[in-house]
């Protein structure tokens, strides 16, 4: 089976064990890959800009801390303000990396009609969507928890007064 597949890639007549991607689908994949690559590169640039912002915030916060009276509090607040930026930067990097990998691998895979490249591309596409999905789930959960905690706090203050 494997040897016939490698030597002769012509479509068999019996029920197909594999999914076959024709010319039209290949052209769509190629276009999708081009846009994905473009978006990935833009994402890398955005990551670099966020990294610069992080460095800037990191450089500014100790100065702010030194200038103000309660230096310890301000310094820790400055450090804390970088954490969300860093998280966004890491998220952006990986989202863009998976997109870029999908784009380049799909381009190579279609150019040489190689299944290995295309499989790698699909793995990266999967990781891209999975990362966005998991991030969204986490954000929604945080929102719901904040909502509940906020409601409980408001409720408890009303109970005490």
């Amino acid at each position: 089976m494997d040897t016939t597949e490698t030597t002769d890639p012509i479509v068999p007549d019996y029920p197909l064990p594999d999914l076959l991607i024709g010319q039209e689908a290949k052209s769509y994949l190629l276009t999708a890959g081009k846009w994905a690559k473009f978006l990935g590169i833009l994402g890398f640039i955005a990551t670099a800009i966020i990294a610069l912002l992080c460095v800037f915030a990191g450089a500014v916060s100790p100065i702010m801390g030194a200038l103000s009276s309660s230096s310890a509090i301000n310094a820790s607040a400055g450090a804390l303000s970088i954490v969300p930026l860093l998280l966004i930067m890491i998220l952006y990097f990986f989202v863009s990396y998976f997109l870029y990998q999908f784009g380049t691998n799909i381009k190579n895979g279609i150019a040489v009609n190689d299944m290995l490249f295309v499989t790698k591309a699909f793995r990266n596409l999967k990781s891209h969507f999975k990362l966005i999905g998991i991030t969204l789930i986490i954000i929604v959960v945080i929102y719901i928890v904040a909502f509940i905690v906020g409601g409980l706090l408001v409720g408890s203050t009303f109970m005490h007064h």
Partner: protein
Amino acid sequence: MDTTETTNPIVPDYPLPPLVIDQQGKYFLHTAGRWATFLGIFGFVMTGFILLAAIFVGSVFSLMGRLNPAMNMPSSSGGATASTILGAMSGVVSFFYVLIALFYFFLSYYLYRFGTGIKKSTTFNDSVTATKSLEYLKSHFKLIGITTIVIISLYLLIFIGAIMVGIFASSALHQ
């Protein structure tokens, strides 16, 4: 040769034969499809929220105009009252919200169609459905790409416009 071509839509196109996606590739595609479907449904919900926000922005602005009597005074520059200006502004803001909602809707729609289609095609080895869903994947990335280009060029225009205004203002001050 012709008969196989008509019965089977996957034409063994010479010089390039069709790409074969094996179990592993199908698994990755299937998982990508599941997440894409989820993201699509999430996007539909978000679209609903944005549309709600668009409606609320309009009513909040009109409420501001009604609650503040000073806004109904005719302004010095012309006959238009502040509340009518606010009303026009709320229209502009609502328009932008609807625009964002439209963008979100199509983004999610393409993702959803890709996800559901690719799940089906990987299960049944259906190349026709796979082709359609890959077209939706293409549309999804193309939409994001074009929107990003438009937004970046708008930013650049604003940047250049601001610099031009600054230059003109400074030259006017020096005269």
